């Protein structure tokens, strides 16, 4: 079995006594699409916040490609190639769709502190940005302020922005939340495409999508890992049905 790209040991986060995430040991294998599911409040988002250091773990270690990143700052983690998206869509509302992506592209160039430089310096990257936006089907919306996009397209834009960083690992928190059916399928395809050559860890309530996209699934409940495995195993597991999917409860 190959070396895990993300590995947590005993990861725990408690908010004044309340354990939102409790001793989670997670292994995400490189090149896989790994889903994290569970009822509301299971601790999925908190997990993401811990992995990207938006929250400081109460205890436990986080390894990225074997290196301990538990002590790093969020922006450092991002620069290491571990990039997350947010549950409630996070785009730069007043900026144009294009600028949203340009912002991500601009980071690799060391110039972001040059307040004396002109924006034109970045034009070289326009082509790349447009290409990315085209991929997510926003090719026609380049100059629209992001705030004006419908919710679903926002998620797409967010995805494009994340991709612009060309991250090794993407953490997507409910990338399909609040999307209409057609958006869902489009975005699902997109995720599958871009996942090639990367690792994806995603939170998703839409089990249909999870079923077809994901190689591996971790089910959380009350901050703990309930089951882990491929979709078949997981969806059959009585505890999962009981605690998450509902239905054949305690018969």
């Amino acid at each position, binding site marked *: 079995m190959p070396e895990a790209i993300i590995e947590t040991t005993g990861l725990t986060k408690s908010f004044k006594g309340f354990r939102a995430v409790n001793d989670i040991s997670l292994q995400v294998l490189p090149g896989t699409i790994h889903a994290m599911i569970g009822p509301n409040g299971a601790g999925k988002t908190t997990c993401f916040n811990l992995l990207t250091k*938006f929250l400081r773990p109460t205890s436990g270690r986080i390894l990225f490609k074997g290196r301990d990143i538990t002590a790093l*700052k969020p922006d450092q983690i991002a620069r290491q190639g571990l990039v997350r998206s947010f549950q409630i869509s996070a785009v730069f509302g007043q900026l144009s769709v294009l600028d949203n992506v340009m912002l991500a592209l601009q980071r690799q160039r060391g110039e972001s502190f040059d*307040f*004396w*430089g002109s*924006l034109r310096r970045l034009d070289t990257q326009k082509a790349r940005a447009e290409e990315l936006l085209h991929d997510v089907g926003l090719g026609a919306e380049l100059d629209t302020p992001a705030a004006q996009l419908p919710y679903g397209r926002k998620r797409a834009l967010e995805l494009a922005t994340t991709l612009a960083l060309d991250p090794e690992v993407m953490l997507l928190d409910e990338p399909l939340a609040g999307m209409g059916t057609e958006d869902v399928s489009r975005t699902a395809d997109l995720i599958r495409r871009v996942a090639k050559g990367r690792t994806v860890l995603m939170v998703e309530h839409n089990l249909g999508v999870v079923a077809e996209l994901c190689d591996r699934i971790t089910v959380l409940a009350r901050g703990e890992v309930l089951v882990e495995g491929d979709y078949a195993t997981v969806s059959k597991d009585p505890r999962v049905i009981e605690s998450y999917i509902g239905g054949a409860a305690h018969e």
Partner: protein
Amino acid sequence: MHLRSLTLPLSIVAVLALLAIPFFPQWIYLVFVMKTLCFVLFACAFNLLLGHTGILSFGHAAFFGSGAYIAGHLVKNYGVPFELGILAGGLVAALLGAVIGALAIRRSGIYLAMITLAMSQLVYFFYLQAPFTGAEDGLQRVPRGTFLGVIDLRNDTALYYVVLGIVAVGLWVVWRTVNSPFGQVLRAIREHEPRAISLGYPVARYKILVFTLSAGLSGIAGALKAIIFQLAALYDVHWHTSGDVILMTLLGGMNTVFGPAVGAAIVAALNHYLDPFGAWVTVITGVVFMACVLAFRQGVVGELGRLLKLRRPSRPEQTADQPARGESQP
């Protein structure tokens, strides 16, 4: 921003008007214009934080005043030449900005505002006690000196063009910053800080840098004021001045680059032309401000921009003042 299309012609007109002013002394008083220019620079510099980074500083008087006192002190008591005095004023203010900024940005929102306010009160106390400031009598009789040792600045017109030049450069720096890769990141921080972090930007460093920049420019504005009036006074470091600059910025429109300039002009004009109303000035000013907050929340320039937008068919646009609860049907 649809104002863009108008920005160029408007600014050309403005520049020409500004250049012409000295030839019509009976219409508008030169020193008043110079004073206004100082506040224009001050407000635009301040807006680098409020408008473009989304940081509310309630202590910018500390930078403005420091600029004034330092420049005044050096020029008066050490015979430092005009341009060096201005520069020093800016530098000291920038330094102060870096320090206060570094402390303040560890918090956000109202807490940040209060920290900056508190720090500026400490600075106020310093200038109140410092021997060279002359306390409430102010640092008086600052010589205007000469520009580059040739142009005699005791001549208002000469001084005016120099001030105009310096302020223009200052505004250019602001504009440049806003429209630079750096400014782009600032906007990102304003729009969604966590996202900016998750894109790998060391947000803290950006904030400190923009704080320093804003403070420095504010300092230069203050320094200019000290030279123009040949004095620096406590009011320049008083928290009222911090309040004034917030006011100017909001009146002009904090989501625009040069809106604050307009705001500054409005406030200055109110102060200057309301004298005939005697004791009523304060009340009138208050009413005007109220009307502004309630009527055009985007600020004068902001609302202008909105009107221009409404003209064109475009998607309903995100504005601060959308109805909180949704619309209803019969």
